[in-house]
């Protein structure tokens, strides 16, 4: 078994043009050294039934031995407010907020703290192991505690507060449930003896949703991260009674004319960014670390709107998680300026070594080289579906979700990467996973090792797409790589230089700028080949400024592994609705003629030609393919070219009037399971053995100004291209269409 995880890393940025510099951030817990080589990836799939791992080394300036060190990852989100004289010099004070805990019990979680764990001094308000509010103040020697009498409930809003009354010599915690019916009321107060004076620590930040360790980065700076939502945290320089605490926290705009108001954070400000704003006038603004979920419904959300852009004052909450991770923050071990003569492509650092037990290590760190920014180097562009790669990054579904074996119709296959992920959750989750508190993961970042976006990775997305690259190399057809993020940032300009653009096996995640770019490209005479399935499905956003970050909110329909919470399906990055593009008025059928209809994970099928395929308009496509020939009754993914996730044409969803239905794979068995948005009510007969809407369609249509679209509607398509030494009808059909699409003669 080859060890693919003894050394891991990430490239930053994920994609560069020739002349630009990419840095490589590496870590190994076990290896002191490895051999490094930059490779251009042709095929990333280790399956011996296919072409196998195929890379070429362009010979780079950084090739050679490299010393390695261990760089830990510290997951968990929080807000950090820099220290100030006011925070450091507090006498009597009250901290209060609304709290919505999402994973109680078992361990301590800090709500707010100005605390130095190393010196055991400061103050902190926690949820203890039994879900009781617990206030601790300490000065390094002495320590005072007070604990609320009743434990909090999971997923119920509560007012949570702590007071330090040096004047009266007491400390207290107070909680008040917002819902008091059905046994939900946990309202109560506890008071205990406290000091008359205390020396607070110096140079200590105030942290929300975690506490300071007293250590500095790259060591772990915070610990005891909270799982839950915090809304309207306030800090007040007096020991308030329960009534005044309630008024202070509840006020959307506490008066900054009150000199005792030290901080009043409003998380509904600047929702798209990583800053939290203080309304007090003291500018105790803070920085969010590791991307907690913003645009979360607050304690006052009443359902009048589902969008934070319409009622921002009802979105003053942030949902923190102990497993959030946006940036590993590793130092760069190597930097590479990409030479001008390197062809665009999928690239990777190949790191090889042997473990102490003599096991071969072969680990890859992927990056993408696009064309020079001022010109295309080929008439064909292949889109690197980086939004989709990010959405699936480090998916732990097969480890965590009981549906996976049933969906897979067989034992869950676990790779070496999965074994590593199982025990190393600090690498962060995919947008398919749920956090440790069960809430959906809506962000993904590339600033971390991504094990399923590299050679030898699990076979989906990245690995499947390299079968297309392998086929293009075999055919001798040159191409440039354009990434999703390039298209999001640059719009149709990123596609315009190309006569043909191919989207690969599963371009599932699309932002509005990306969809706009493709529509513009197609209608300006561009030729678009969509050689995949379940494309253009989820509406996402890239972060407006930070590179390599996407967001999706799963909404309440679609094939989804978690469901968005009520009111939390608007993107925090942009304020746009998320969910399916079909639910946003732009079904995939409108762009590429076909759209997702079903999953098929038991066996793939073949296509049969339909009447339209004999029309002279598409004679170019079927040269060398017989009228009764089964198309794609072979392939590396479950034995056929139509499988895994499949798409169909539908005029009511936007398939264009001039669409030609060339072939279909509509003999899908009982393992063909329609996606939820494909049926109105549940009823028998939904599966592929009884339901002709469970199928993969191959379609063609002309756009305007001589452009055209060809779509195959199946993830498995690209993985059939290499069958029988590339001499097969999937390869032939793809090649026929590509050659005609590359021909500048306009389509009618």
């Amino acid at each position, binding site marked *: *078994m080859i060890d693919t995880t003894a050394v891991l890393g990430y490239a930053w940025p994920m994609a560069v043009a020739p002349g630009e510099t990419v840095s490589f951030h590496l870590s190994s817990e076990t290896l002191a050294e490895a051999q490094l080589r930059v490779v251009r990836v042709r095929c990333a799939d*280790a*399956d*011996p*039934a296919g072409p196998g791992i195929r890379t070429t080394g362009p010979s780079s300036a950084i090739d050679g031995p490299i010393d390695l060190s261990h760089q830990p990852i510290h997951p968990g989100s929080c807000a950090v407010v820099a220290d100030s004289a006011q925070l450091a010099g507090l006498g009597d004070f009250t901290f209060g907020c609304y709290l919505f805990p999402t994973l109680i019990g078992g361990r301590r979680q800090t709500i707010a703290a100005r605390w130095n764990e190393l010196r055991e001094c400061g103050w902190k308000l926690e949820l203890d192991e039994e879900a009781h509010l617990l206030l601790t103040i300490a000065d390094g020697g002495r320590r005072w505690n007070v604990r609320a009498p009743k434990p909090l409930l999971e997923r119920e809003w509560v007012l949570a507060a702590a007071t330090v009354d040096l004047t009266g010599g007491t400390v207290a915690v107070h909680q008040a449930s917002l819902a008091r019916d059905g046994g939900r009321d946990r309202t109560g107060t506890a008071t205990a003896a406290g000091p008359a004076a205390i020396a607070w620590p110096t140079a200590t930040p105030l942290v929300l949703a975690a506490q300071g360790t007293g250590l500095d980065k790259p060591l772990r700076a915070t610990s005891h991260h909270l799982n839950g939502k915090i809304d309207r945290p306030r800090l007040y320089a007096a020991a308030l009674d329960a009534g005044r605490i309630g008024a202070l926290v509840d006020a959307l705009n506490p008066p900054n004319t009150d000199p005792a108001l030290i901080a009043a954070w409003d998380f509904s400000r600047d929702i798209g960014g990583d800053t939290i704003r203080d309304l007090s006038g003291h500018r105790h603004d803070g920085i969010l670390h590791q991307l907690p979920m913003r645009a979360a419904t607050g304690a006052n959300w009443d359902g009048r709107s589902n969008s934070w852009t319409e009622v921002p004052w009802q979105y003053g909450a942030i949902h923190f998680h102990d497993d959030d991770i946006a940036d590993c923050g590793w130092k760069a071990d190597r930097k590479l300026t990409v030479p001008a003569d390197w062809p665009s492509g999928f690239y990777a650092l190949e790191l090889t070594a042997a473990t102490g037990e003599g096991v071969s290590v072969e680990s890859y760190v992927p990056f993408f080289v696009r064309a020079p920014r001022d010109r295309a180097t080929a008439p064909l562009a292949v889109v690197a579906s980086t939004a989709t790669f990010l959405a699936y990054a480090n998916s732990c579904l*097969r*480890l*965590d*979700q*009981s*549906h996976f*074996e*049933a969906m897979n*119709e*067989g*034992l*869950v*296959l*676990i*790779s*070496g990467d*999965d*074994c590593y992920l*199982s*025990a190393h*959750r600090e690498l962060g989750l995919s947008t398919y996973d749920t956090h*440790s508190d*069960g*809430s959906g993961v809506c962000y993904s970042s590339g600033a971390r090792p991504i094990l399923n976006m590299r050679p030898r990775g699990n076979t989906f997305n990245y690995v499947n797409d390299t079968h297309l690259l392998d086929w293009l190399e075999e055919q001798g057809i040159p191409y440039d790589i354009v990434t999703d993020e390039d298209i999001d940032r640059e719009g149709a300009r990123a596609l315009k230089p190309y006569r043909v653009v191919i989207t690969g096996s599963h371009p599932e995640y699309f932002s509005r700028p990306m969809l706009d770019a493709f529509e513009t490209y197609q209608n300006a005479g561009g030729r678009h080949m969509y050689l995949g399935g379940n494309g253009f499905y989820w509406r996402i956003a890239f972060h407006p400024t930070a590179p390599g970050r996407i967001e999706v909110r799963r909404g309440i329909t679609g094939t*989804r592994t*978690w*469901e968005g*919470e009520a009111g939390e399906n608007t993107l925090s990055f942009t304020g746009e609705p998320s969910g399916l593009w079909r639910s946003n008025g732009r079904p995939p059928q409108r762009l590429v003629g076909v759209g997702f209809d079903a999953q098929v994970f*038991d*066996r793939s099928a073949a296509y049969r030609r339909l009447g339209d395929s004999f029309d002279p308009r598409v004679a170019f496509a079927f040269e060398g393919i017989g009228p009764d020939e089964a198309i794609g009754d072979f392939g590396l993914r479950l034995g056929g070219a139509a499988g895994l996730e499949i798409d169909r044409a539908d005029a009511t969803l936007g398939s264009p009037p001039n669409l030609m239905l060339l072939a279909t794979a509509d003999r899908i*068995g*009982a*393992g063909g399971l329609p996606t939820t948005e494909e049926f109105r009510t549940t009823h028998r007969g939904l599966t592929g053995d009884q339901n002709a809407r469970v199928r993969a369609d191959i379609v063609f249509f002309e756009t305007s100004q001589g452009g055209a679209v060809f779509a195959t509607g199946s993830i498995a398509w690209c993985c059939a291209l290499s069958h029988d030494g590339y001499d097969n009808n999937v390869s032939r059909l793809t090649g026929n269409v590509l050659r005609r699409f590359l021909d500048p003669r306009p389509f009618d």
Partner: protein
Amino acid sequence: MLENDPNAAHYPIDPDRLDLVEEFRRAPKGPHSDALQKVLHRMRWAGEPRRYVLIVIEPGRRWMLGRLPERRGGQIERLADHVFTDPADAEWEVFRRRWQAITGRVLPAERTV
């Protein structure tokens, strides 16, 4: 919240339906009759504490039986004395373990008779 409930698969498995055992033994990857599909769904959806999985030792060539950890963040257990060169044999091995756990009846270890 929308959650997967492993206890939701409650199709009653008849210990006397050895015809379904034979059907699975002959073709672990199917296609399967309706009755066998229901048996398999019960087994696969419910799984077991520390679900059985198939660890890929050599892609397309060798696999090892394994078990998921009880909780997130744990190690996957490797059952080193259960290595397979045909994944269908691994499917049979897990099927017979689950059949025994559900029905109390022991099935032979060998898939081919």
